[in-house]
């Protein structure tokens, strides 16, 4: 069986510092509006008045760093009319920009918002797993940048053996849609995908 690369995301220690996101943008020289890796803050609960004091009532928040999940069933690859979006033998999903027509159909299809349209180039761009760094035996930029060591990468079979198979906590969508190659260690307050009581707390311009 071909090796399949994937990420382990440790949401239980993520501090929402966004170092992974900035490292990704820096390494890949992305325009400010394009973030291949993003950190989403999910939270909920409220405050209730009790004996003249305001008390937290189920207040929680946690962060999930996410990028392309290099899925088993990548809907972007299926949707792409030109075959520009491909799944490589090592499982990495890449967009061949010479082939891309810029129709943005992959963007509609992806439940993780992973393909990003580059206005200046007129084509799609996305996380390429820092393939050039991998080729030199180095780690992806996001992995090395994380001060909490919350991102790990490797063969998904090994990651799953180590960390289990959970790949869906709020606000990530159900893993059934595309079978993402990611393993999530949930925060203690994590809620199941589709059953969350909270909402995404980031400002729109952050995501």
């Amino acid at each position: 069986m071909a090796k399949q690369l994937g990420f382990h995301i440790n949401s239980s220690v993520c501090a929402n510092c966004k170092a992974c996101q900035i490292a990704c943008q820096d390494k890949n020289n992305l325009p400010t509006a394009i973030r291949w890796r993003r950190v989403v803050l999910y939270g909920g609960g409220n405050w209730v008045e009790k004996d003249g004091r305001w008390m937290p009532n189920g207040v929680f928040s946690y962060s999930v760093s996410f990028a392309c999940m290099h899925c088993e069933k990548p809907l972007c690859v299926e949707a792409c009319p030109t075959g520009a979006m491909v799944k490589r033998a090592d499982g990495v999903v890449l967009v061949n920009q010479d082939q891309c027509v810029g129709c943005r159909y992959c963007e509609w299809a992806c439940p993780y918002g992973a393909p990003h349209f580059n206005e200046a180039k007129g084509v799609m761009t996305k996380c390429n797993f820092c393939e050039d760094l991998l080729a030199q035996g180095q780690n992806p930029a996001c992995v090395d940048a994380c001060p909490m060591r919350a991102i790990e990468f490797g063969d998904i079979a090994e990651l799953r053996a180590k960390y289990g198979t959970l790949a869906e906590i709020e606000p990530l969508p159900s893993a059934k849609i595309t079978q993402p190659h990611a393993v999530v260690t949930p925060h203690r307050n994590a809620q199941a995908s589709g059953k969350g009581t909270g909402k995404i707390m980031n400002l729109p311009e952050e995501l």
Partner: protein
Amino acid sequence: MNVREWALITFTILAQMSVGSFIVLGIVHYFVVRKSGEKQADELSDRALLAIGPVLALGMAASLLHLGNPVNAYKAVTNLGTSWLSREIFFGVLFAVAGAVFAVMQWKKIATFTVRNVVAMIAAVIGVALVYSMSQVYMMPTRPAWNLVTTPVSFYATTLLLGVLAMGAAFVANYWYVQRKNPGCASEQCVLLRDALRWIAISSIVLLGFQFVVLPLSIALMAASGAAASAAMFVGEYGVLFALRLVLVFLGAGVLGIFAYREAQNAGHERMLSILAYSAFAFVLVGEIVGRFLFYATATHFGLQ
């Protein structure tokens, strides 16, 4: 809404209108041949047939404006195995080619009537496949407001409604052209025009009824299947536009349809009939454009964006 999204509205509306027109024209032509012979039928429909080509071409040209990198457009038919977008473009080009082949054969009277009929039938089937693949482009789990059976159904409803009314307008335009050029031929054409428009009026009223079932059904299905936010937009922020769409289609296909039906009963009312046919087409066209705008504007994304 930006240029790219208007490109999609223009493309889908014009492509569906040309498929619908082609089918409606074929049906009308078939009945007129039986009633009045080939010569009169050709006189009624040949010029209308030639009008369909530019409409489709315009729609396909508009679709290029939707692309970030149109120089690669020719590569967009290379993933027919899995991509509905590829299939849409494939059937679009195939319909254009088959339609053009038929139009040339019909215009120059190449081959026999039967052979031309077979070519027209093939083109019509390709057109049906085109509208089907257009609808499948939008059927994806990440767009719950689109991923409903009402998407293909309403695309076909739009196809037929625009086809019927576009051809109504085309027959009227053709009638006045014929009358100017060759008044002797016009009396028979006048009878045919009134006959055709009577049936066009009946069809548009029936299609209107169908659409007024499909539209509420689609919103109910949205609400029931994970696109409640989209359903809410039809009565919330886009309520006025949605009402406008309903009113325009109701006035065009329904009210003007009834008047057109009545005016088509008696000779001598051709001028009034023409005004009704033109305005019914205009009302419904604008109504369908607003409807397609809402289709795109209300589609919420499932998952992270």
